[in-house]
């Protein structure tokens, strides 16, 4: 009897210990995941024009609401989602007031589906289209945490709050270095609106999509939210200097920086003898550029001698121009040989199209890997081995001739031995 009780007590204690052990790490993990969790802010245009009935026979607003309901149902648990509106509250004619009209409908966080849907249901098309201010506020909504951040802007009209250019706003947000992407969706767009929305997307490395049907809208927003949930490596912000001596020292990793037109950026990496430095750099064209441009990455010694360079040039226009280089540092006989400091210089030959602001600089992405050095080649062919019919023919011929010669020599020797 006593034994059974003891056993039961033991089991209880064990269970308690196990639960406690499991509970603490679980709690810690939960905290960590919140900090790392991807955040998405859906920014919906609720301006007066959303009343237009041209999406699948219903109003644009109805299509957006339906899409939001479906997206809220499909949002992965890991994603922190928020909703912001623009032009939802002020119906008047005063531009100044109308252009401040942006409100947080649902704060960024774990989604309570019923609550969020109820909030969306209350929306009715009202006011202006202050895209720029809304984007600024949305960036504030997403502030904090180290996970990926995404703004999905759904609009049916171009910005009505000049002179603040939403495209420049987007570029400034991206330049703050908080790793934010803005994707834009245009409902039944016209040419000017396409240009503006795709400019916003381009400024942050996002995508632009035209939407004519409700299911297109749902699919695209779902795709974007899912994309946010994909784990991505977050680059570390760094700031290159204008000369090697002042340059920041980098270790293996992924870095981002900004580089203006015609600017030089220098970084330093320490490479031990017998190690190989691999560096690649991408400079993005985040605004309207003149076609035909290039990027140059040079590895230079501290004394200014160039070791190796990578260069890339583009014709036409693409999102990014990138290049890379490898520098294997030879093994040293001296065990105490110090690491060599290699200076990396990044330059670009982009030029801004006329009327485009040149600040902030263009986004630069730099990867640095310092790995073990390669085994050097001592021959063109693998291990100096041969291959092919010519080789076989030569070997057979030489072998045969050697055999003939050897046979003849040995015959001659026997003859000599016999005469003696």
């Amino acid at each position, binding site marked *: 009897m006593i034994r059974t009780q003891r056993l039961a007590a033991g089991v209880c204690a064990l269970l308690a210990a196990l639960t406690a052990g499991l509970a603490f790490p679980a709690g810690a993990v939960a905290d960590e995941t919140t900090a790392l969790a991807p955040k998405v802010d859906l920014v919906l245009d609720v301006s007066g024009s959303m009343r237009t009935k041209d999406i699948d026979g219903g109003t644009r607003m109805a299509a957006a609401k339906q899409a939001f309901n479906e997206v809220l149902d499909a949002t992965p648990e890991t994603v922190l989602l928020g909703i912001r509106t623009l032009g939802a509250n002020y119906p008047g004619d005063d531009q100044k007031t109308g252009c401040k009209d942006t409100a947080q409908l649902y704060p960024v966080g774990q989604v309570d589906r019923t609550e969020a849907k109820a909030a969306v249901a209350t929306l009715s098309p009202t006011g202006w289209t202050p895209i720029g201010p809304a984007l600024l506020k949305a960036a504030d909504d997403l502030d904090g945490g180290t996970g990926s951040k995404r703004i999905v802007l759904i609009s049916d009209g171009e910005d009505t709050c000049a002179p603040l250019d939403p495209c420049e706003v987007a570029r400034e947000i991206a330049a703050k270095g908080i790793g934010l992407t803005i994707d834009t969706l245009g409902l039944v767009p016209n040419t000017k609106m396409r240009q503006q929305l795709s400019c916003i997307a381009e400024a942050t490395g996002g995508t632009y999509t035209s939407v004519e049907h409700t299911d297109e809208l749902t699919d695209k927003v779902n795709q974007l939210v899912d994309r946010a949930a994909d*784990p991505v490596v977050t680059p570390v912000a760094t700031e290159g200097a204008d000369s090697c001596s002042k340059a920041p020292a980098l270790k*293996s990793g992924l870095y981002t920086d900004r580089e203006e037109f015609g600017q030089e950026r220098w970084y330093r990496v320490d490479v031990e003898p017998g190690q190989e430095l691999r560096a690649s750099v991408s400079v993005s064209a985040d605004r309207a550029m003149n076609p035909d441009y290039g990027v140059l990455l040079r590895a230079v010694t501290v004394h200014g001698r160039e070791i190796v360079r990578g260069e890339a040039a583009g014709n036409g226009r*693409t999102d990014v121009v990138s290049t890379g280089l490898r520098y294997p540092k030879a093994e040293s006989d001296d065990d105490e040989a110090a690491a060599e400091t290699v200076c990396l210089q990044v330059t670009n030959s982009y030029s801004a199209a006329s009327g485009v602001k040149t600040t902030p600089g263009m986004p630069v992405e730099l990867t640095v890997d310092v790995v073990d050095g390669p085994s050097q080649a001592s021959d063109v062919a693998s291990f100096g081995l041969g291959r092919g019919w010519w080789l076989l023919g030569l070997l057979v011929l030489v*072998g045969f001739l050697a055999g003939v010669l050897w046979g003849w020599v040995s015959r001659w020797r026997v003859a000599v031995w016999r005469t003696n």
Partner: protein
Amino acid sequence: MRITRVLSGALLALGLAAGPAAADSSPSASPSDGASAPTSAGTSFRTATEVEQGQTATASASTGDYLYWSFPADSGLRPTVKATVKLPDAHVAQTWQIDVYDGLRRRQACQYGAQTRTAAQGTASIELTCVLRTVRSWSEPWANDPLPGTYYVRLTAVGLKAADLGLPVDAELRVDSKDIGGAAAVDGSLAKPLVPGIAVTSATEEDDDESASAVLSSLEPDDGWASGWWTDRWVWSGIGAVLAALAGIGGYRLTRGSGRPRQVPPGA
């Protein structure tokens, strides 16, 4: 005597058969079992979707998007990248382009294949191909030769008019490789394949850090990266040595005669 002849004949036959057979052994591009093909594409080098060779990746996107995929390629292989784009119902003439970059984000040349193509107004789909150079196991740091590691593919429409931006398109991508074999076997090898972020990844592995953190590139060929030790040149050179030895014996016998000289009486 007969045994020797049979043996040498057999060796010769084996050698002749094995040499070329090893050279064109079946390509290693086979889709890994059970892994489903990706249905989306990344939008930058950093977010590129990983595709295995032999898999058909699909993605729905909008015109004006830059679609990125990455795939692993090992030495001795010559990858072929094929992309098919289903264009929107109504569109004006559009030019599409694929670019292939290596693990250092250096642009890789296409030997042949239509890398850029213009679809005339109303065309339903367009197909692009890029046949890369053979991946070799080593090259000088100043060369741009393809090396084993990750390769990036970017698919995009270039020079779009504003009216054509943002229209829905479907893209399909497939990478297959031809095994070039020992003909491309060069000396030397990299300590680590040209996989971006590999220094960070291997450091974390050493630390035994179990955190499932994101990595720039994680795919490997089905049977791991080649060590760079094996090439069919071993077979060719070995067979050459055997044949030379046999030919030597033959030559010797021809001049030396069989056994003892004819004039020598038995027992001398």
